[in-house]
């Protein structure tokens, strides 16, 4: 009996790698493949963005590859970039977990003839051809502070709940928030930014960071969370603790996730844009770059399917970017309409 079990196990052991064949699906195709790498899995915002990317790529008749690491780290993305380089994809569009750490991997990709774009969260200008930005970063930063000012009635302590400390989009928006505060000392004299906490775009960490903020700053008026995972976590905590009306939550959130908190008042209003459109726009930018229609220089234009024409403009970090549009405000009046869309 023992010997039999032994041999069965040996066979099973040897065959384990074979299961991969069944798990992997189809073989190769001659169609150009365009890849999108998001920050991490389990992120509904990221899923929407990748959905839009896939829609754009498939609309043009190509194949889309969607990847995301399970941890929001740069080294995990580097591994994925390596694998995509080996697969000789036509383009890589990435939402960077780190502004600089991905440079060696991405420049290797570009050396191999792969077009590299960043979307949503930028990588440094040397690592990319151009960046697809959802909305003007300055506008996002300033608008959020103005919203906090409004919700705190002009005076009080506010805090920021961000994602990871290296995410370039987060840092850029926070920079503009701080600039808005510094440039208008008279207006914001009674408003104090007491803490920037990092929830890493992970649900449980965002929850515990929110609770930490509430404990350390009992007089906190507003939490600004420019991350869909963070704002949803903050909304949950405020609601569960019965602090609706005492502490307001605002930031960037998905209407589908935040509908509950906008309706119950935990979040008076918040902002976002359409992540599906961001992905869609990226998909067209990627194919335009592969076709040689654009090279990433300011002033070039390209067509993005149902979204129309777009122009490449200079970006704040020294490179170039493409802007989707202005941030959109969600409040009790329009949330019902948008919560089923995304």
């Amino acid at each position, binding site marked *: 009996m023992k010997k039999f079990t032994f041999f069965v196990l040996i066979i099973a052991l040897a065959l384990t790698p074979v299961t*991969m064949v069944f798990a992997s699906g189809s073989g190769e195709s001659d169609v150009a493949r365009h890849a999108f790498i998001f920050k991490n899995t389990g992120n509904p915002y990221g899923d929407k963005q990748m959905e839009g990317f896939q829609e754009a790529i498939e609309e043009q008749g190509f194949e889309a590859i969607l990847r995301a690491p399970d941890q929001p780290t740069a*080294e995990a993305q*580097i591994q994925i970039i390596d694998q995509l380089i080996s697969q000789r994809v036509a383009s890589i569009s990435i939402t960077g977990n780190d502004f600089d750490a991905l440079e060696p991997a991405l420049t290797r990709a570009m050396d191999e003839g792969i077009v590299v774009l960043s979307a949503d969260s930028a990588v440094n200008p040397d690592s990319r051809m151009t960046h697809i930005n959802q909305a003007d970063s300055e506008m996002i930063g300033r608008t959020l502070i103005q919203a906090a000012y409004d919700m705190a009635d002009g005076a009080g302590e506010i805090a920021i709940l961000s994602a*990871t400390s290296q995410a370039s989009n987060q840092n850029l928006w926070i920079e503009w928030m701080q600039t808005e505060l510094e440039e208008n000392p008279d207006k914001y004299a009674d408003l104090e930014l007491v803490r920037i906490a990092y929830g890493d775009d992970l649900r449980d960490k965002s929850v515990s960071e929110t609770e930490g903020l509430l404990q350390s700053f009992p007089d906190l008026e507003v939490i600004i969370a420019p991350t869909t995972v963070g704002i949803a976590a903050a909304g949950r905590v405020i609601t569960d603790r019965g602090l609706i009306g005492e502490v307001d939550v605002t930031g960037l959130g998905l209407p589908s996730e935040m509908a509950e908190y906008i309706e119950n008042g935990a979040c008076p209003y918040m902002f976002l844009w359409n992540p599906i459109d961001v992905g869609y726009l990226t998909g067209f930018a990627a194919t335009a770059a592969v076709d040689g229609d654009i090279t990433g220089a300011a002033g070039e234009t390209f067509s993005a399917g149902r979204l129309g024409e777009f122009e490449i403009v200079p970006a704040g970090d020294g490179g170039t970017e493409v802007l989707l549009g202005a941030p959109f405000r969600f409040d009790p009046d329009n949330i019902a309409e948008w919560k089923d869309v995304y």
Partner: protein
Amino acid sequence: MADAQDLRRIETKRSWKEFFFQWEWLLVLILILTVIINSLISPYFLSFYNLINTPTSFLDKAFIVLPMMYVIILGRIDISVGSTVALSAVLMAVSYNAGLPMPAAIVLCLLVGTLGGMINGLLMVWFKELSFVIVTLSTMIIYRGIAYIILGDQASGGFPEWYSFFGWGRIAGVPFMLITFAIATAIFGFLLHRTSFGRAVYGMGLNATACRYSGVNTDRVTIIVFTLAGLMAGVTAVFLSSRMGSTRPNVAIGYELEVIAMVALGGVSTNGGIGKIAGPLLAVFIIGYLSYGMGLANLQAPIVLVVIGSLLILSVLVMKIRFGLRRKKSTV
């Protein structure tokens, strides 16, 4: 006491049949299978360039596999290595950015790692009543905690250009990491199989009491083994930081488990006293190529984890049945 079956496992003289029926040959078979399967799934896998360059993505933690083998043969475990990597890397980055010249910072990194390992060893030797799991569990938490205190949620980097040579550079087409790993494997292998120190490690894993009363300085062996683990964690920190260009307190999370998985798959029994250098070496490449190959086929991360987990369980089961491992441990 070791029984006849274990002695047969350790004895160097064997019949041809027994020689080929070893665990390590099974691993060779699995490795070949892995390469074949990977090439079937993706035409991009099988190229000399790929096979030589892929390892750099998983070799950084492979450096720790070498001393971890010693630790497990000894009958113990070290789960603090991931935290040691983080602490060494963070201290290196912070000191460099505070003005310390890069070469000195690299030495500091290795020193911190070595010290971290030595502390583990000393604690185990001074407090023999404490389970080894508890000791390394505590240092795992403490070391990473210190890293977080120093750097918070931030990243630190900005290393000089030449530093990326460690993780990305090549000599005559072969990645520097691969060359270094080969040298390290040769050294650790020699130490294990050809010196009296290596014999002592095996002996202590099988029966520490007998060793002690035979004149082996068991305390010294323990300290040296854990210090080596710490040193290699420092080496990993150097390569990891070089590949990433920066470092954070939360790097290398989970490394200890991946390393232990590689060692276990390599035929090193967690009961101690059994294992050869070839085993974990093959296991490193099996797990590495498997993950890489699956990534090439764009399989999602969860599937990769399930496959590797299954491989591990099956391998442990096979080992148990074939070699009938049932011994009680003795600690000294």
